């Protein structure tokens, strides 16, 4: 295990996806969704969904306001799962169909 691991050891299997998907903010997660191919989105979804419940159970034992960097990254990966789920489940494409150039900018979100 690398000393530079982004995720807690118990979730090292998700490490390959951490650099891309442990984004700090919603706008970054959403941009990443738009910039990814469906293959990439599906690969991430397939890797993290089976492990998501375990991740939640693990994070539930921690204080939200006192997470380590690695725990925070894991939490953010779950936010990313939420963000990409629409593309994978509903639209079969990264972008919302018929959305043209419409955008909604999240300018404030809770941290973590």
């Amino acid at each position, binding site marked *: 295990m690398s000393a530079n691991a982004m995720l807690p050891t118990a979730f090292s299997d998700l490490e390959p996806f951490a650099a891309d998907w442990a984004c700090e903010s919603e706008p970054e997660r959403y941009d990443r969704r738009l910039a990814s191919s469906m293959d990439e989105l599906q690969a991430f979804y397939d890797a993290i969904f089976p492990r998501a419940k375990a991740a*939640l159970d693990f994070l539930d034992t921690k204080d939200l306001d006192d997470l380590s960097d690695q725990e925070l990254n894991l939490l953010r990966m779950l936010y990313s799962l939420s963000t990409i789920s*629409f593309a994978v489940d509903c639209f079969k494409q990264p972008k*919302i169909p018929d959305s043209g150039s419409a955008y909604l*900018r999240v*300018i404030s979100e*809770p941290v973590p």
Partner: protein
Amino acid sequence: MTTAHISGLTEAEAAGIQTFEKPAPGSWTESFGLKTGPVSFRDNYDPAFYELEKEAVFRRSWLYMGRAEQLPRAGTYFTKELTFLGVSIVVIRGMDNEIRAFHNVCSHRGNKLMWDDDPRAETHGSCRQLACKYHGWRYDLEGQISYVHNAPEFFDLKEADLSLPKVSCESWAGFIFINLEETPSQNLGEFLGPDLVKLESYPFGQMTQRYVIESEIDANWKLYLDAFQELYHVPYVHGLMNNPNVPATGIDKVPFMVPAFSIHGKHRCMTSGGPFANKKVRAGRPVDELFRGDFFGPKDAPDVGPLGDGVNPSGIDPWGLDSWQLYPNLVILTWCQNWYITYEYWPTGPASHKFVLTGNFPKPKNATERLAQEHSFVTTKDFTMMDANTLEATQLGIMSEGRTEFNLCDQEVAIRHLHQVVHDDVAALLNERQG
């Protein structure tokens, strides 16, 4: 298939539809005293109407500025740019804990008082005094002058003349409003009316976990309001979100019906079954179960105590949501899962507006609750995006004047009401001017 189905339902529509009783004499529209004929949508693009609307509607109504929680203690403030009216408002909590509003203008030579790097952008912060960056004049938190730089150089300055120009400011249920009239023709409580005032008892103050979205939309402000005050569009615009396996359009779909509409003076409310409604035509997704949340909110709603006697004005059962449309441009949507959304629609031109959405939850106690909220919020955002782009297409279509008369059905009564009220306000203004 060439016969127009304009009198009955098709078979596909009839299957699974949830219907609700209508009030006497048989339609919401008629029960509210509204006419049923076609309407013009000129008010959505005509530049002359836009100018009148600014005066008749926005300069004569109570306008929503923000939440009390944005001003947690004395000295906290935020500014609100009402660019279309050419004013900037500073809202500030004084030493006495009162919330006041002022024109954001220095009394010396008119410089903008509170701003950051970009004088056109909104700002917020905390201070002991309000200080002008130009010549250093200062004001206390109640807007009184407290320091004039090199004062002896002036002639006959009177303290009383140097206060920041006050703007009428009142709060209700933690929502801060201002009124730009010299003397407001009604106080806030009178403007809101008794039914909305009762909503004060709803625990808004417990829902401080907040998300904020902004966007610039190339459509008249009323078009977006209209999109959210009917469910007629839901099977088509949100088809793929509700049921990914079925084509979004081009086929007959089961209609969504609204259980109850209610009119409260200039305001209106749409009450619906939320998660309890239209179950036959909605398909949940695995992530909804994983995160225990969806469009309707966290499935395991936290306890926030009693919801008060303002919710569910029409007394439907089961109750899913109230979408209160506060005239002119604020929507407060309370969900049965104990969170609420606000929408604001600020004109920036006859065919454009700034849209602000906030999602407000009780503080999450752990990661599971946090994720349920995140997932609900992000779902709301994807839904909202689908509406946003459609509006720009609608604006183009209306402006082409290929058609100039439009038919609204009974499920679209709230649209009819909003446009009627706006028209009435504009007509009243024109009458005054002629008289």
